[in-house]
């Protein structure tokens, strides 16, 4: 099934509560902006790609929302939707990992923290992966790694470029060492892509840290970032504890990374699709 069908199926039952939770909606109609605190009519927010019309704050998007924004003509076909996580270590912290997976699936309407598929941006073929922060903080375990690797392998086979939208707190600790190995696996897949001279564009969105930033998210031929996204290796709290001082304002934000040479462009959501199309056309022609 296409991601659109899947999106529609889950939509009705989930979106209301989910959106409320993710966006702090104080009712059904009004959303309060995290940054400027202004109340925004939910419809206006959605029409503005979930960017605050007042202050430009970029709200988090789910994979499905992102897909809907990028592929208005429904041209995105999901691949490997059936992969799900398993508690192979019988890991249990404050909650059993198996239960946590189940709950996350129910709550988010997603199978795991990434959706992968093939699609067209205008006339341009693309293999795309989109992470979901709403599924266990976008953490990367075996499923994210496997779906990523399969996506890249599909791209190699079809000679498609790859675009990844990252958002992740890092490795999924409940899978312990196996989550660390996904960094190796996804990076190796990108090595193969590169060997085949197929382009890779990484889009970093808020937040992208830890094992995901230290593997595929930083490896784009071109790295794009949405404004003000938190991007870094270590989390701000860990750094503050280590250096025993407050972090400067703007630290680890997209604009900071641009200044420090780590991302090519900070790109507002409204310009993102155009920029991707331009870049893909550059690589293609």
């Amino acid at each position: 099934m296409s991601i659109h069908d899947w999106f529609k199926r889950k939509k009705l039952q989930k979106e209301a509560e989910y959106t409320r939770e993710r966006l702090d909606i104080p009712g059904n109609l009004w959303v309060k902006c995290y940054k400027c605190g202004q109340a925004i009519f939910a419809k206006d927010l959605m029409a503005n790609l979930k960017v605050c019309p007042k202050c430009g704050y970029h709200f988090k998007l789910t994979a499905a929302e992102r897909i809907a924004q990028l592929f208005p003509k429904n041209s995105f076909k999901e691949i490997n939707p059936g992969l799900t996580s398993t508690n192979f270590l019988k890991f249990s912290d404050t909650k059993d990992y198996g239960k946590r997976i189940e709950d996350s699936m129910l709550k988010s309407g997603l199978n795991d923290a990434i959706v992968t598929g093939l699609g067209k941006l205008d006339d341009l073929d693309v293999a795309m992966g989109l992470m979901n922060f709403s599924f266990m903080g976008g953490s990367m375990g075996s499923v994210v790694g496997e779906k990523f690797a399969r996506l890249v392998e599909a791209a190699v086979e079809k000679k498609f470029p790859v675009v990844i939208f990252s958002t992740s707190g890092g490795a999924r600790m409940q899978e312990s060492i196996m989550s660390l190995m996904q960094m190796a696996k996804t990076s190796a897949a990108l090595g193969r892509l590169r060997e085949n001279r197929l382009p890779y564009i990484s889009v970093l969105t808020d937040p992208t840290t830890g094992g995901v930033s230290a593997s595929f998210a930083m490896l784009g031929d071109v790295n794009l970032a949405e404004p003000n996204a938190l991007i870094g290796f270590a989390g701000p709290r860990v750094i503050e504890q280590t250096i025993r001082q407050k972090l400067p304002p703007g630290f680890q934000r997209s604009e900071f990374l641009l200044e420090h040479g780590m991302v090519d462009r900070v790109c507002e959501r409204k310009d993102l699709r155009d920029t991707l199309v331009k870049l893909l056309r550059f690589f293609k022609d």
Partner: protein
Amino acid sequence: MAKPEQKKNTRRLLPFEKPIEELYDKLEKLKAVGSEVKMEMNEEVRLMEKRIEATRRDIFAKLSPSQIVQVARFIQRPTTLEYIDMIFDDFLELHGDRNFSDDPAMIAGVAKLDRRSVVVMGHQKGHSTKEYLARNLGMANPEGYRKALRVMRLAERYNKPIISFIDTPGAYPGLGAEERGQAEAIAKNLREMAELTVPFISIITGEGGSGGALGIAMGNKVMMMEFSIYSVISPEGCASILFRDATRANDAAVAMKITSKDLLELNVIDEIIKEPIGGAHNDPQLTAKNIKAAILRNLGPLLALSHHELIADRYNKYRKMGIYNEGN
């Protein structure tokens, strides 16, 4: 001089080796008496030494994961530079990333393994607070990973095998490290290691801490010292984040499966290198001998592979990692 301090140092005792402490005290008394009465106590000294060894053997036969963590982190544990010195000849350290600085937490260089040229690298800790400070406890900055990559590429250009030694709590989570792209540095290393056209062997000798460990550990063969650990986060970090209780590090150490035995069972590593009774620090020479034998045993078959086969071997190794369900 503070004599008890010195005793502890020469004995190199871990916190959980308390039972041996008493035996050592007795042994020393026996020796003292022996030197007075000239040699007469020799047999008893021998017996006491045997008893110490037996007790140590018993203790180490059933170490808990969190005790293994203590061994892996022990300040007396041999460091990368010591292993290099014992295993290789003609080591010449190469410094610098040709970009920003030389990172003392990461060492790299050229050497001979028997008569074969190899490139070696690894995290460097130390045996004292002073050395820990100088080496940042083996927590590398981006420059460390970039130096490692530079030297890996040197190895590749001249077709030399690479041996890496892993011993770090993790990549350094500092201000400058973030500014200079810690994430980028590690990520690039991962991709480039996957594509290396030369044999690559990685050995976790002490702490294999997260991305900072993996950043130089994507060997064709990955081995772990018997009492080393390898994990995505420290037991303490896991306890405080996942268990929401910083005191539960022991439980986290168990749950995370971070010992060499666990990781061999998970097929994440290829081999366990035995340590002497009481751990590597009790007999560094023997430990180094074991490591060298393991390197040589594993290097042989890798040397027979073509550049392409080496890349494919590594790709398949990491491609397979992961456990998941597949529905429709």
